[in-house]
């Protein structure tokens, strides 16, 4: 599982740093690809733009998706992920400061696997990231990866 990458779509550099630090502190050493807006997240998944030529059959083990993202917002990114053949089963965890009930419902209805409200408190944030990392990297059985030969 160590070779699997985590895609983190997050525009706030402080939150990016805190998230990566929380992973490292809990011995989750997987490579974290950071996309600072929704367009970059989709470019990574689709192998376009700055990620042109990337082998797109290599998909992240989990996507951590902020909702308020520049260029393309999180729910729109989620929608595109669910429509694409290579990524439609990919586990997506919404990780956001929004506590609005409508965001939660919309997130689930669009096919988010899980929704986590970023705790404001540093210790609680670290705990949540730890649990999230272990859950999706270790405890959850990921969807089978589509091989190239299967088209």
């Amino acid at each position, binding site marked *: 599982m160590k070779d699997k990458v985590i895609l983190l779509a997050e525009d706030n550099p402080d939150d990016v740093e805190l998230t990566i630090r929380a992973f490292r502190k809990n011995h989750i050493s997987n490579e974290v690809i950071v996309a600072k807006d929704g367009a970059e997240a989709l470019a990574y998944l689709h192998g376009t733009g700055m990620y042109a030529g990337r082998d797109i059959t290599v998909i992240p083990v989990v996507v951590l998706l902020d909702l308020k993202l520049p260029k393309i917002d999180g729910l729109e990114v989620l929608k595109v992920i669910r429509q694409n053949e290579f990524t439609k*089963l990919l586990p997506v965890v919404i990780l956001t400061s929004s506590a609005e009930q409508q965001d*939660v419902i919309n997130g689930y*209805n669009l096919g988010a*696997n*899980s929704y*986590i409200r970023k705790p404001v408190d540093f210790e609680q944030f670290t705990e949540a990231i730890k*649990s*999230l990392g272990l859950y999706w990297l270790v405890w959850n059985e990921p*969807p089978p990866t589509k091989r190239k030969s299967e088209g």
Partner: protein
Amino acid sequence: MNRLDVIDILLVEDNPQDAELTIRGLRRRNINNPLHVVEDGAEALDFIFCRGAHGGRDFSKLPKLILLDLKLPKMDGLEVLKALKLDERTRAIPVAVVSSSQETPDIQTAYALGANSYVVKPAGFDAFLEAVGNLGFYWLLVNQPPVK
């Protein structure tokens, strides 16, 4: 109010031993949310949609988590999952498949039908308790459910 109107966890499991271990695993992690066990797929849907024996239940009170076994009497787990995820009133409820099956087609189909997570039941007693505890902790204390 009906006792079954305030269920946080619906456990769909036909094996009484696994059901008991699941409850123990949750309690051990201090997850004391109200839980209800149904033993077949048809009853799971009756419970959620307030039909049949559960006709008196309040439909607006949805569980925060459904733990769903796959091999179930009457209606199998994948059929239950499909019915829940096709209905816009119930689609948002997190469903974690908890199954002894490690078969790729089962995992693939479960995700394709909209399972939020798929956890393979570990074989050993302690490992089972730990896995269930982790599962409950994540879904009830870290994850934000679609219902308050």
